[in-house]
């Protein structure tokens, strides 16, 4: 369990660096460190399927950010001009909202089962009968493609729509 605490400290430090730093490529790399720590935490919580998907998706996200940043500027021009009066209002509002959010979240999350012993009513049915009903040895593949196949279908439609959106935003028809 010690590794989980150390990794969460590294994750939060990299997150704060990614937001406050002036160079834009450095903040994209710091976001890559956050995604990488999340993937290793997925391995330590015994979820190898999620770890594989998280690490390839995070590498793709860093590639997309780098492709956009290298076509435009490298530096952030909004930091270092002093504190303006019109930027104090969002910061104060955010701190009030943030404290309220964390206090109410801790109050609501006390009702969850203790970390390490979940209530597994439906999951016991899937684990007992997964191999006999579907024939697949990977229980997660049996869940996402046989017991809950509509969610995968909806996700395929969402990915198709996002590709359509990107291609229609970036068309060059009629421009010189």
């Amino acid at each position: 369990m010690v590794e989980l605490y150390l990794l969460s400290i590294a994750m939060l430090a990299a997150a704060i660096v990614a937001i406050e730093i002036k160079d834009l490529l450095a903040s994209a790399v710091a976001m890559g460190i956050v995604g990488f720590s999340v993937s290793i935490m997925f391995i330590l919580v015994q979820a190898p399927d999620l770890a594989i998907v998280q690490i390839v998706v995070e590498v793709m996200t860093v590639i997309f950010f780098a492709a956009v940043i290298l076509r435009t500027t490298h530096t952030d021009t909004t930091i270092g001009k002093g504190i303006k009066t019109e930027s104090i209002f969002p910061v104060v509002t955010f701190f009030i909202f943030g404290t309220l959010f964390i206090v109410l979240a801790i109050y609501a999350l006390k009702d969850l089962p203790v970390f390490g012993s979940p209530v597994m009513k439906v999951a016991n049915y899937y684990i007992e009968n997964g191999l006999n009903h579907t024939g697949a040895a990977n229980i997660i593949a049996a869940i996402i493609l046989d017991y809950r196949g509509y969610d995968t279908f909806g996700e395929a439609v969402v990915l198709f729509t996002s590709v359509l959106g990107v291609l229609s935003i970036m068309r060059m028809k009629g421009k010189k």
Partner: protein
Amino acid sequence: MILIIACMLLIVIGLYAVITKRNLIKIAIGFCMTEYGINLLFAFIGFKKNALAPIITKIDAPKMFVDPIPQALVLTSIVIGLGTTAVMLAMILRIYEKYKTFDINEIKKLKG
């Protein structure tokens, strides 16, 4: 419990970037960070101590697995996060080509 508070802090840091920052790329990074935090929170809820990953290797072995249902839901959510990020970056690229800056205060002043 401390780990769940660390996830909540990651979500709140992402929201801080979306609300207070003035650079468009930092806002997009904040969105991504909030999604990572939410997926991590779901994976922590399904953890069981001294249990194994939910993959069957021998047919008649006793079965002590972690909860597979939150993992199945998070698998979908990670890939949808990638699609959302791609559309946001396409819009940011188009805005830069028209206004030549990432600062949202400058973009509010110039009226086309």
